[in-house]
């Protein structure tokens, strides 16, 4: 048991000063020392034979991760539990980063708000690296016959771009906002298991250098899906990739358990499920789905790792294995993972839209049903990725049907958004721009997904740029846009500053224009037959690729502007009032900056949070036209600031 009950702590002991001294620097030093030791010992004992290099690389990377976690203090809690030396309340406060200034962001800090900010910075860093790789891809594809990078390097760049963006998008909403906002939103003082919370973050920090080390060990020339048996033949960079995914799966599992438990067990008094904000539903259903889905991905990677280091034959058809096995295990996670990414972002947009439309969420029950329908069906669609693999052709029809069916609950969410906007007096601020952009992008992504779910279309389009454009419209156009909206919405609460609206708007819409230019162009070349993951193409596809590359540079420019707006506002932005949007959910009723324990008195919820325009008036309440904090409609609220909002 990693997290101990408060009731079993020894009260009144002096704070231990050993733990706070540990930080990311001691983690790196400890990780490097242990990695060096692992490399030395494994080179001495295990480097001979066919699997020697893979064994040495794998052991070195595992040693790095363990050393880093020890060095950063992540394992102090479990070790103390084993020894029976529980933390005192004072120790817990030290671990939570009380009175430790900026340094707490570089330590194993248990305060959920610190972890949320750590996740935010990490996910934006990952987007920076992944985006840079995307620019390299589009530069290579700017004209036929370009030799910007070698084909082998290009393949690795494509794979690394894919996995970095996948990890970044999985954590981008449930990490920052699921940690910072969700506990306050449900009226809790912290997450259910604060140390597990910090552990899930630092595990990813341990994994990221392992992933980047892939470049130094020959890369992953297989794409991020690392299909077997290609992955069996890949250089040692593949071992780094496998270790990364295993660590990330453990991290996601821990985070999923923590967030689910927090939301299920720690909601404020009176917060029944029908009064629980929709963002909580979206985040919890996403992470709970991940708890089941990621272990299957992990299993696929463990088996591949065993193939590479011990000579097992799971995916080797010549010795009784099967590449289909890998495809099943991978896509059993791979398709639910799309919804793991999408649902929290969609739910964030569902959360913020009523605030700016000044109307109740249109059909709360419809939204919950949509989320539940997506979760339920997502586990039964995986084989549409295997239509042309030759596996069970008789099942193509049923899987086509389930894939088409999932468009119904997804469409329900779109209808809820449209219904919420319909006849609303929309307050046109930066966060709600994400609603409009997401509607446009996601409808295109969704409809092209329905095309691709049809077996005949899929047989023509599989592995083409059309597929690449489709999933970018859902994951980037839908989910990443939702993240941008969520960031703009919760930025004042997380940083205490207002996000620069003008720069933010400019950056946001440049990204959207660039995005549509890039991927509509990609649809065109995909329809014409250009395969994905190939470093060169015939001149037939030249115009479409040039358009896509120009669009990509426009995205890059917009992203830099948006990033500048975020960083500059974080440091120098106008100080934010406690509730700049006049929102009704609990996180806006606490002061900014949020106190260490969130609430001095715990709230009791007496109705849902979407009563905009209610409270005696059937008409929507007009939103204020200025930046000044609007007055929420409905009954007066006693806030944590002691006043009446």
């Amino acid at each position: 048991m990693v997290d101990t009950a408060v009731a079993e702590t020894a009260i009144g002991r002096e704070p231990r000063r050993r733990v706070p001294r540990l930080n990311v620097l001691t983690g790196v030093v400890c990780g490097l020392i242990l990695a060096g030791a692992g490399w030395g010992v494994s080179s001495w004992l295990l480097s001979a034979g066919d699997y020697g290099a893979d064994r040495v690389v794998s052991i070195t990377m595992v040693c790095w991760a363990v050393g880093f976690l020890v060095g950063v203090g992540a394992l102090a809690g479990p070790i103390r539990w084993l020894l029976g030396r529980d933390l005192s309340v004072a120790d817990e406060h030290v671990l939570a980063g009380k009175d430790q200034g900026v340094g707490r962001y570089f330590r194993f800090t248990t305060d959920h708000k610190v972890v949320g900010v750590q996740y935010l910075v990490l996910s934006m860093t990952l987007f920076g690296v992944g985006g840079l790789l995307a620019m390299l891809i589009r530069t290579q594809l700017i004209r036929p016959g370009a030799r910007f990078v070698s084909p082998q390097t290009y393949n690795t760049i494509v794979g690394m771009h894919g996995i970095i963006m996948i990890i970044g998008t999985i954590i981008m909403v449930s990490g920052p906002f699921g940690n910072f906002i969700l506990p306050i939103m449900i009226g809790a003082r912290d997450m259910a298991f604060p140390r597990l919370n910090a552990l899930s973050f630092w595990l990813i920090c341990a994994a990221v250098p392992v992933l980047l080390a892939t470049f130094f060990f020959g890369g992953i020339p297989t794409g991020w899906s690392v299909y077997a048996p290609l992955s069996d033949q890949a250089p040692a960079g593949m071992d780094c990739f496998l270790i990364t995914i295993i660590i990330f799966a453990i991290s996601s599992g821990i985070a999923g358990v923590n967030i689910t438990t927090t939301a299920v067990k720690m909601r404020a008094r009176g917060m029944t499920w029908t009064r629980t904000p929709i963002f909580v539903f979206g985040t919890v259903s996403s992470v709970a789905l991940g708890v089941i889905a990621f272990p299957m991905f992990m299993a696929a990677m463990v088996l591949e790792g065993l193939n590479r280091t011990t000579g097992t034959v799971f995916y080797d058809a010549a010795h009784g294995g099967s590449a289909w096995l890998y495809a099943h295990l991978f896509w059993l996670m791979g398709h639910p993972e799309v919804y793991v990414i999408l649902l929290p972002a969609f739910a964030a947009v569902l959360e913020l839209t009523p605030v700016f439309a000044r109307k109740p969420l249109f059909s709360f029950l419809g939204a919950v049903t949509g989320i539940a329908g997506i979760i339920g069906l997502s586990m039964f669609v995986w084989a549409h990725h295997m239509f042309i693999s030759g596996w069970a052709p008789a099942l193509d029809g049923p899987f086509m049907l389930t894939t088409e069916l999932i468009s119904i609950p997804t469409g329900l969410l779109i209808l809820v958004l449209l219904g919420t906007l319909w006849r609303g007096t929309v307050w046109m601020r930066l966060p709600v721009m994400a609603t409009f952009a997401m509607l446009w992008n996601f409808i295109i992504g969704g409809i092209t997904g329905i095309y691709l779910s049809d077996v005949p279309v899929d047989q023509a389009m599989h592995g083409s740029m059309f597929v690449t454009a489709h999933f970018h419209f859902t994951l980037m156009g839908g989910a990443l846009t939702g993240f941008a909206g969520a960031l703009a919405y919760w930025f004042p609460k997380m940083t205490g500053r207002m996000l620069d609206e003008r720069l933010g708007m400019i950056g946001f819409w440049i990204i959207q224009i660039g995005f549509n230019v890039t991927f509509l162009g990609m649809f065109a070349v995909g329809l014409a037959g250009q395969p994905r993951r190939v470093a060169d193409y015939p001149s037939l596809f030249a115009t479409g690729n040039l358009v896509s590359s120009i669009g990509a540079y426009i995205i890059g420019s917009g992203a830099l502007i948006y990033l500048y707006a975020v960083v500059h506002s974080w440091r120098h932005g106008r100080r934010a009032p406690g509730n700049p949007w006049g929102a009704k959910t609990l996180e806006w009723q606490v002061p900014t900056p949020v106190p260490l324990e969130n609430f001095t008195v715990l709230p009791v919820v007496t109705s849902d949070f979407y009563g905009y325009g209610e409270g005696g008036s059937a008409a929507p309440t007009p939103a204020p036209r200025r930046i000044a904090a609007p007055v929420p409609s409905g009954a007066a609220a006693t806030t944590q600031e002691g006043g009446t909002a």
Partner: protein
Amino acid sequence: MSTATVTLTHGPEELGEVRGRQRLAVLLLIAADAAFVLSLVFTYFYLRALDTEGGWIPQDGRTVGPTAGWVIAGVAVLSAVAYRWGELGIRGGRRGRLLAGSSAALLLVLADAALQTIQLGNLPMPTTDGAYASSFIVLAGYHLVHLVMTAVFGIGICNRARLGRFSAANHSHVEMVGLWWIWVAVSALLTAFTTSFVGT
């Protein structure tokens, strides 16, 4: 606005609340682990059913008999029973019984780990010889991982029981580790059952 406030003193949380959270979290962790174990079971049966190129059984036909797997599972079940006996003891406030039960369970788990290691070290076929060998080794190997994790938890519980950290009113960690212990026993039975199906 839709909320009211209520004044509560902020002290240690109630044991019942903490226990409820821990229980849900452990069950979710078990669900995640079960998804992993079932992936390995699926791997075993899937490759056995495919028998690609007749490559399921090793070329010389050597396989592992089912008896050892059931013995290993039996020891895992016995350890879970011993632990449960200790856990029921602390519910009645008998710390000595908890210490005895958890110590016996720990010893049984260590013995089981030794048996599993011996089995893996004396397999009649190498890892490279057919999908059966690969599938068997990964299932048995993961059971060994389970046993090591359980042993670590068991050491913690024994040590804390020795230090008198548990009482009739406050033993949620004993209960949570007990849930895990039961799952490990169930997983051992599942492994033994799966590996009993050898031929295609």
